[in-house]
């Protein structure tokens, strides 16, 4: 506790309150105020995560910074917060990303500025709530509440087909999580509370475990998204405004992976082991199948969206290997994917704002007019292709090592991403950035502004820093991953 403040509550509610304040500035006449207030709110939201990082004790086991008070006593629902290393990294990533999207929307968004900024601040707070919740009902409320701001972001500031995309996004994810609610209620009936730590100790028979696992899996698989419930993502990305895509890819998808880690594995470990083969199969299909699909996309955003799905395959694969290397790899892959996919969507956004096209065919020779941008884009493309020395390598490397410990062919199929990701990223890069200048429009492109350069430089520093020295992040994860693995290794059959 810093000055006795409930840090986790601050991390959740500060951005939400800031969002409400920003919304209060009202119409676009006060857009300037809205922007600055939003930036201050986002920065404060990021600053309050720093004491978490500083005071987090990597040598301790269990949840830290716990807060607990009764919320709905009738159902034994608590406002119970607490984090481990996994949540910590995702919270910091989330707060960092919120700052970036506020900056990224600075000049681009000109209508309903206050609402736009507010939506992102609220979304950031709510997602922190998911990462902090130790009560299943609280978790569920936060988990579902994330849909609303994102639905609005896509539906209001999106592209021409935004309504279809927003609905597809909303329905897919809402339907997915309805069964989760049923599973949560079942667990409440069995245990008499919604406390996750209590559920970790609960004995459950194999049949109900499997049903609970499947109910969870549908919700989380849609969020990740896993093949074959992934088709909402490319549409959502294509229609979402740049900021929406960034948050969607960088943080929202992680809710799925986080759900597997926080709920599925420790609550229903026997079912998790029993059905690991299914998840691993779907993950490997995602890596290879989606990698090939990404190769033939004509729309840059779709390409990166498919690449996202393929990379998230590493997360689910790593989790269900039940191997220390694999699981740390999965978490680090989530963090890295947050930086890299966020950066790539920002890069596409930079081009889109100038050319109003996402079609690869409309570009060519961009390096001639935007050399600094081209350098950043190259770095992020390489990071996405898993180049060692960038963050993209860390998670994939660990997951491949973990997969090898389990089965040679898992590693073999996963490692195909080395070829596929390089193929789709660099082929796109070649067509968009290199080559002779494609048109007058490309020739007239303006180099990135100082604001854009700042955003990309922050991300570049994160990508390189994590690639060159991931040990500080790994140290935070060591005990949390070990704890989780030992929880998942127990049998809970009565």
């Amino acid at each position, binding site marked *: 506790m810093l000055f006795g403040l409930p840090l986790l509550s601050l991390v959740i509610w500060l951005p939400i309150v800031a969002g409400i304040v920003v919304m209060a500035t009202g119409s676009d006449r006060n857009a300037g105020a809205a922007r600055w207030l939003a930036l201050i709110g986002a920065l404060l939201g990021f600053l309050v995560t720093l004491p978490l990082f500083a005071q987090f004790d990597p040598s301790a086991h269990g949840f830290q910074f716990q807060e607990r008070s009764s919320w709905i006593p009738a159902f034994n629902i608590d406002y119970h917060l607490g984090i481990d290393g996994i949540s910590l990294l995702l919270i910091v990533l989330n707060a960092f990303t919120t700052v970036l999207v506020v900056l990224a929307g600075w000049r681009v968004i000109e209508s309903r500025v206050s609402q736009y900024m507010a939506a992102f601040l609220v979304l950031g707070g709510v997602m922190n709530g998911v990462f902090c919740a130790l009560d299943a009902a609280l978790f569920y409320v936060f988990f*579902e509440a994330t849909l609303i701001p994102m639905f*609005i972001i896509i539906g209001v500031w999106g592209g021409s087909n935004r*309504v279809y995309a927003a609905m597809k996004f909303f329905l897919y994810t809402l339907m997915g999580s309805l069964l989760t609610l049923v599973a949560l209620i079942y667990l409440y009936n069995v245990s008499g509370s919604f406390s996750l730590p209590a559920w970790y100790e609960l004995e459950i028979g194999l049949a109900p475990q499997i049903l609970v696992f499947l109910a969870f899996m549908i919700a989380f698989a849609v969020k990740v998204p896993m093949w074959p419930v992934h088709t909402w993502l490319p549409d959502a990305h294509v229609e979402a405004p740049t900021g929406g895509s960034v948050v969607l890819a960088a943080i929202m998808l992680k809710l799925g992976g986080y759900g597997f880690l926080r709920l599925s594995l420790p609550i229903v470990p026997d079912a998790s082991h029993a059905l690991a083969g299914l998840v691993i199969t779907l993950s490997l299909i995602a890596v290879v199948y989606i990698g*090939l699909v990404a190769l033939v996309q004509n729309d840059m955003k779709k390409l990166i969206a498919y690449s996202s799905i393929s990379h998230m395959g590493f997360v689910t694969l790593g989790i269900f290997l039940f191997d220390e290397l694999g699981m740390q790899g999965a978490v680090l892959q989530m963090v890295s994917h947050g930086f890299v996919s966020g950066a790539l969507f920002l890069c596409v956004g930079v081009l889109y704002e100038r050319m109003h096209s996402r079609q690869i065919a409309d570009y060519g*020779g961009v390096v001639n*007019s935007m050399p600094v941008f081209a350098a950043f884009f190259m770095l992020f493309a390489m990071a996405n292709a898993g180049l060692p020395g960038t963050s993209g390598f860390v998670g994939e490397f660990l997951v491949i090592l973990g997969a*090898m410990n389990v089965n040679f062919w898992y590693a073999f199929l996963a490692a195909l991403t*080395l070829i596929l990701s390089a193929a789709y990223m*660099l082929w796109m890069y070649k067509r968009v950035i290199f080559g002779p200048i494609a048109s007058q429009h490309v020739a007239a492109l303006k180099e990135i502004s100082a604001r854009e350069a700042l955003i990309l430089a922050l991300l570049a520093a994160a990508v390189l820093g994590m690639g060159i020295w991931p040990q500080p992040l790994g140290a935070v994860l060591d005990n949390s991953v070990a704890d989780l693995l030992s929880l998942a290794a127990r049998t809970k059959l009565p």
Partner: protein
Amino acid sequence: MKTLYLVVPFAPLVGALVAGLLGRVIGRTLTHTLTILGVAVSLACSAMVLADVLEGNTFNGTLYTWMSVGGVPMQIGFLIDSLSAVMMVVVTFVSLMVHVYTIGYMHDDPGYQRFFSYISLFTFAMLMLVMSNNFLQLFFGWEAVGLVSYLLIGFWYTRPTAIFANLKAFLVNRIGDFGFLLGIALVVMHFGSLDYATVFQGAPAAASETVELIPGLTWSLITVICILLFVGAMGKSAQFPLHVWLPDSMEGPTPISALIHAATMVTAGIFMVSRMSPLFELSVTALAVVLAVGTITAFFMGLLGLVMNDIKRVVAYSTLSQLGYMTVALGAGAYAAGMFHLVTHAFFKALLFLGAGSVIIALHHEQDMRRMGGLRKYMPITYLTAVIGSLALAGIPPFAGFFSKDAIIEAVHLSSTPGHGVAYIAVLSGVFITSLYTFRMLFMTFHGPERFRESADDHHGHASHAHALDTQAPDTQALDTHGAPGHDMPGQDARGHDVHAGHGDAHGHAGPPRESPWVVTVPLILLAIPSIYAGWAYIEPFLFGDLFTGVIASGETSPLTKLADDFHGPAAFVLHGLQAPPFWLALAGFVVAWYLYIRRPDLPGSIASGLGGIYRLLANKYYLDDINQSVFAGGARRLGTLLWKAGDVAVIDGFFVNGAARLVGFFSGVMRHFQSGYVYHYAFMMIIGLFVLLTLWFARA
């Protein structure tokens, strides 16, 4: 000493960062001074390190812990022994020569600073690769040199051929890296460590381990590891069938062809296998695979050198073939012979590439040998050094290449690896082929009639002319992150191959070709010196001394051990060589080349047409590019399209998702409110709805 180890790789890195980030600000002269200084310091320190190692001081230590997961420490650290020290000196020496040469070669290029930044960065990456004491850093360096190679092949990024070539190079290398990474993963799985020393220590005990990759079929673990690692070497060292990227890499500026695609990066695979020799020694099967791949590469790529007309491509195919020789040496279990050829080859092949570059500048970026000839009197220094390089490459005693190549041939002869008989015949006939294409190149370029005055329009079918399609200048800066854009507008001037501003004068109108400036000729001379003496001077320590004792494995059965019995000093080696078939084959190659390209220059054409199908097969590079392009590249695209259109669009979305289409239709009715200002009402309603729903369900429960 430890500080010195750090200076070696990091001096070039500092140079690269300064040139890359501040190059625009500090200008050309300061950029090249600083980067050259960095590499020169690195060379000096490497030499000191080598001297220290020769006194018996080796080092194996950690720099920092990259990460540590699941009991596997992953560290960045150095292993300084004779193998790494020799590589450090070779890399920094060639790199320094290329840095100096670049001042002349890239003189008029708008991307001058960027180029220096890249080649210094490359030097850093290559040094980290060879100095590594673990598999992780090896892989870091491995991919990093690939990245810089990618950036440099595509240095003139407006040229369609260049950016095709660099994409191809990266992807083909990634196929190799795919195998390499799996090999590393298998090492970690079994040994629980990435550290060389730990792995090598545990290797003998692992020799009897087996893995069952396909149910019912068991393989030796070490064999699988070695073959997977070797797949990585096949990519980086351009071994058949992953060699296809190297000839295309000639699209890059010539200095990097010398540095990266001849002397250093492409030898990383050879170095790696030598480094891993304690593992390879344990698997005859893996060695047989290595030998077979090397044999195919050495022989068939050499043949292609005979039919190329682009001077850089001849040297490129020659490099492929010589890399094949090195691989053959590894497969024969004579790792030290492979390393020895690596070193001598680095000198004379860098020399030949830089010499080719010197000719190319003198002829205003003409690369077709059919438009050269008679240059010896205009460019005496280039000519003389090219002669030295050619003699070394062809294996004429007492030049450097003779010793290293003869050692390989003898080693194959004495080897016990399965398939060494075929390999012996292939490398022997390869000597004739090598000599033939080498002197063909020398004669077509420097002897015979002067063909460079003919008009450029007279001939076609020469790849470089595709570049005439580019109508804009390469930008002044591309992938470095500094400064304001100062780009040329499209259509400003038309440029040909390897063209820089200032060479705009058309072919053949600029008077006779002139010898290149001193920044070009001095590196040529400095590279010519070791091309002469390095074989004679170093054969004993490399092959029969104890330079590599304890570093490179050599068992009782090693062919070099047998060879050592017959070795009585370099002079005797030469005398023996003069009576052996390789020398006479090399001489025959020289005579045939002289007859065909000096005496009867009309003959090659009729031979080519007489050979018909075979000639077409060679001229089309065995059609491998076409196969790759249509089967693999095209196949992946077709498969991707199928999965996308049939899988995602038709089945998943079309059938399952839009089965809920009516629902979507219903909701879009609701959605209309979104655009009429009720956003937050609706959101509020949803939150309330959620809570009501929750409450209802709780109540029921």
